[in-house]
């Protein structure tokens, strides 16, 4: 990494970028895209923010390719191109990171942050996580609300609250052990269905089938599903298809977990 004086990246200076400065700027642009991609931003946002950063900090154009799990980015300045590729590994959905990256970019556009300041701010982002017990309880309450919206009785909602909270806690724990999400969703669906299935032999509430349906709703892959359609509508077909395929695989894993629990404990029946 060549060390360049910050004045080279000053958007106000009319002098063309040195090669070192352009190289550094290219790295910053793809780092921006990579952070967004790893934490669940849609493709249009990834491309838009990377391009705006490059153009604000002085390259003529930024071209970007967004793929299912990698990014390609080229900056063009004074007829010099620099291209770089990054492989992206999924870090889990984290909207806090997406917001921080966007606000750093807005500060650059407002002129209050230069390239060095922007890099420092990106490096300082520490993904925020809610405490696991709190998230688990909130998700338990959410699934209980779904049960209520589907006209389950209050006892049934209580069953869902317990089953979904425990399942979500396990899911977050298993995710921290770096198991594949597919394994995780299968396991979580099995545990949630088994726990909610206890309401039938224990005679808890009059709507045991609705409890079974609501307790696994924490596994609906909302982000891949919505980002997938959203990417496809905006013309990013390949990432859109990839996201939808991922959502399908996760749902299939959940279905397998549900069906296994139903078969083992004989819980069959339509809600």
């Amino acid at each position, binding site marked *: 990494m060549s060390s360049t004086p910050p004045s080279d990246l000053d958007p106000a200076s009319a002098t063309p970028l040195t090669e070192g400065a352009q190289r550094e700027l290219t790295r910053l642009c793809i780092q921006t895209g990579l952070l967004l991609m790893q934490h669940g931003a849609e493709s249009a946002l990834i491309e838009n923010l990377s391009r705006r950063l490059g153009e604000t900090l002085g390259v003529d154009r930024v071209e970007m390719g967004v793929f299912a799990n990698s990014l390609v980015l080229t900056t063009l300045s004074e007829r010099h191109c620099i291209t770089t590729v990054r492989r992206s590994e999924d870090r889990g959905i*984290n909207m*806090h990171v997406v917001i921080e990256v966007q606000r750093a970019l807005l500060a650059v556009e407002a002129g209050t942050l230069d390239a060095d300041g922007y890099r420092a701010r990106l490096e300082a982002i520490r993904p925020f996580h809610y405490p696991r017990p709190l998230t688990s309880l909130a998700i338990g309450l*959410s699934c209980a609300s779904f049960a209520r919206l589907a006209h389950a009785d209050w006892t049934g909602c209580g069953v869902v609250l317990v089953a979904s909270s425990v399942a979500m806690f396990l899911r977050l724990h298993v995710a921290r052990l770096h198991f594949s999400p597919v394994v995780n969703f299968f396991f979580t669906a099995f545990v949630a269905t088994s726990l909610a299935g206890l309401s039938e032999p224990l005679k808890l509430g009059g709507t045991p089938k609705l409890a079974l*349906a609501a307790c*696994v*709703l924490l596994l609906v892959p909302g982000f891949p599903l919505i980002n997938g359609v959203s990417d496809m*509508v905006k013309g990013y077909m390949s990432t859109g298809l990839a996201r939808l395929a991922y959502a399908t695989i996760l749902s299939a894993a959940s279905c397998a977990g549900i069906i296994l629990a139903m078969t083992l404990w004989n819980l*069959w029946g*339509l809600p």
Partner: protein
Amino acid sequence: MIALGLLENVFFAAIPAVGFGMAFNVPARILGWCALGGALGRGLRFLLVEAGLPVPWATLLAAAAVSWLGVWAAQRLHAHPKVFTVAAVIPMVPGVPMYTTLIALSQIQREGITNERLATALTSGLNASFIVAALAVGLAVPGLFVFRKRPVV
């Protein structure tokens, strides 16, 4: 009766919107917008369905309304609307129809096909897919019609 139903929908939609917002690590200061969006979406959909609109179309309009709220809030929060609109439309995800489809299909696989099982699987499955598609397209409405060239934030 409608007022009671509306109140129930609004209240029980705000909870999962916040819950899923937390699962997506939406910062605490923005969780209120998740709740508001969730309540708006589900409440509006309830009213539209009561007025006689089919559920998928009502979902489309409700999701578009949530997305517009998202645009309005995004410009004040300096954050992309998707940051909280995705959590806000989660309460409209057709969980029970999806589940019913799964159970009906696996009963067909295990115990053989009957007209009743096939009908349940098809109607629930179609219902669920139309609603999910309506949700996603509804969320994209501001981007498709107004923010075509310029970014929201």
